[in-house]
């Protein structure tokens, strides 16, 4: 990744000063999210898909389902695979080529949220124990980078999974025969991810690009529908105090409730 453009010092100072007084450059409160727009089922060829717009950040996620071999240690369970692409058209700082550490980290954070909350009922995705199971490919595709890719990607992934339809099938002599009709992918939990940035020793939620560029550190928390924490990731060159971490956990509990209503409609 090419280094991001430098944020002008006066602007850096201004963002910092505003945050210190509980305000932000775009008029949001410290824990406000940008406007969230969600569309689902936009890619017909994919089993499930969603596009999330978080302000100007835009992420599309597609779900493909294929059959394959299970892992030997869990022969009765389907397989979840998450991949993230920082597509070069999304930002002047993204470059073509294999996923860099940022893309790998993004994919693994999204993966951890879905996996650790046991969101997908993987045990229902077994065709023949030890031989054939369904593999759920979650492909996160970043289309426009304006900060907080993690939350947008996690939201898009959950929305796409909730929108995923599996084809009906019959097993005939070890071969899958596709039958007409679809059933929804079995989902039991709804993990929601929120990301804090620390600027001037204050925590803000949903940092946009310039806030991300000047933040000291980043803290991402994923909570499931029972309000339990299922994944955490600290990032960035700075640090958090234990008080800040516990404060973040409390804010995260409230905020994930609120966001869940947006992503999981009905």
């Amino acid at each position, binding site marked *: 990744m090419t280094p991001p453009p430098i944020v002008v010092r006066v602007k850096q100072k201004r963002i910092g000063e505003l945050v210190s007084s509980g305000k932000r450059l775009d008029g949001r409160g410290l824990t406000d999210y940008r406007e969230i727009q969600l569309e689902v089922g936009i890619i017909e060829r994919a089993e499930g898909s969603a596009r999330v717009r978080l302000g100007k950040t835009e992420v599309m996620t597609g779900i493909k389902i294929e059959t394959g071999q299970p892992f030997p240690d869990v022969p009765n369970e389907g397989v979840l695979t998450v991949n993230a692409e920082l597509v070069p058209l999304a930002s002047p700082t993204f470059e073509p080529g294999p996923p860099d550490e940022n893309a790998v980290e993004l994919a693994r954070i999204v993966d951890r949220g879905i996996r650790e909350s046991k969101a997908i009922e993987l045990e229902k995705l077994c065709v023949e124990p030890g031989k054939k199971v369904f593999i759920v490919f979650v492909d996160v595709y970043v289309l426009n980078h304006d900060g907080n890719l993690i939350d947008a990607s996690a939201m898009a992934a959950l929305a796409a999974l909730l929108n995923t339809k599996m084809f009906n099938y019959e097993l005939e002599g070890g071969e899958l025969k596709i039958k007409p009709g679809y059933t929804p992918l079995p989902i039991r939990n709804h993990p929601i991810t929120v990301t804090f940035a620390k600027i001037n020793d204050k925590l803000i939620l949903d940092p946009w690009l310039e806030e991300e560029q000047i933040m000291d*550190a980043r803290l991402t928390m994923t909570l499931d529908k029972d309000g339990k924490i299922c994944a*955490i990731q*600290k990032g*960035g060159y700075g640090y*958090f105090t*234990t008080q800040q971490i516990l404060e973040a956990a409390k804010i995260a509990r409230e905020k994930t409730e609120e966001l869940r209503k947006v992503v999981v409609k009905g």
Partner: protein
Amino acid sequence: MKIPKRKTEKKKSDPSQKKPEKLIDKDDMRLDGRKLDELRPVKIEVGVLANADGSAYIEQGKNKILAAVYGPKEVHPRHLALPDRAVLRCRYHMAPFSVDERKSPAPSRREVELSKVIREALEPSIFVEYYPRTSIDIFIEVLQADGGTRCAGITTASLALADAGIPMRDLVAACAAGKADGHLVLDLMDVEDKAGEADVPLAVMPNLNAVTLLQMDGSLTIEEFEKAINLALDGCKQLYTLQKEALKSKYVAVKEDVEE
């Protein structure tokens, strides 16, 4: 010429490695005889590699990890250099023989992620602004893994940085806490990590109360999470003492050598 891929016979897993029925017995004793809040036996050595500017070695339970630091030195390739500070680079890598089933030496996605979070855990401790246009390279090699390698790697690499004489705000000590069989436990070993309910690796600069690495997977209520953090911090403090001892003992040895 392309070498045809040969399918290797998967080693039948050792029955002792299978998920045990219980991780913690009724007397709150763990499988390796530890108490819930007890660290594994730790052995640390500083200055173990001749070529590196700084190095350290740790044994924590069955973990055996080497860390080396090269730098500050000229950056290659040069365009990566930063005008106002040193570039910190970090590679966390597991030896193919470090785990039960041979691990491919090519960096896995897990190693790519861990290299990044370890770098971000160590960077806050270093005065990178003292060395503009240079790089400081950290290499962590896991020779044998038994759970908690990222934490042990950080504990070791921080000592290697100190051994290289790089100015630091504090040492970084790292330790995981987690939940196994419904109990909060300190310093998870491999089985507890795999069969347990949650794992919370944490790194801290103890003198500054600055948490530089925090990850979690599993499932914890916020109250349990708070307890887990405090438990992990406690473990870090114990490791911090051991780190300082190890660092001092190197110089005691040097002093004795000189006086002879």
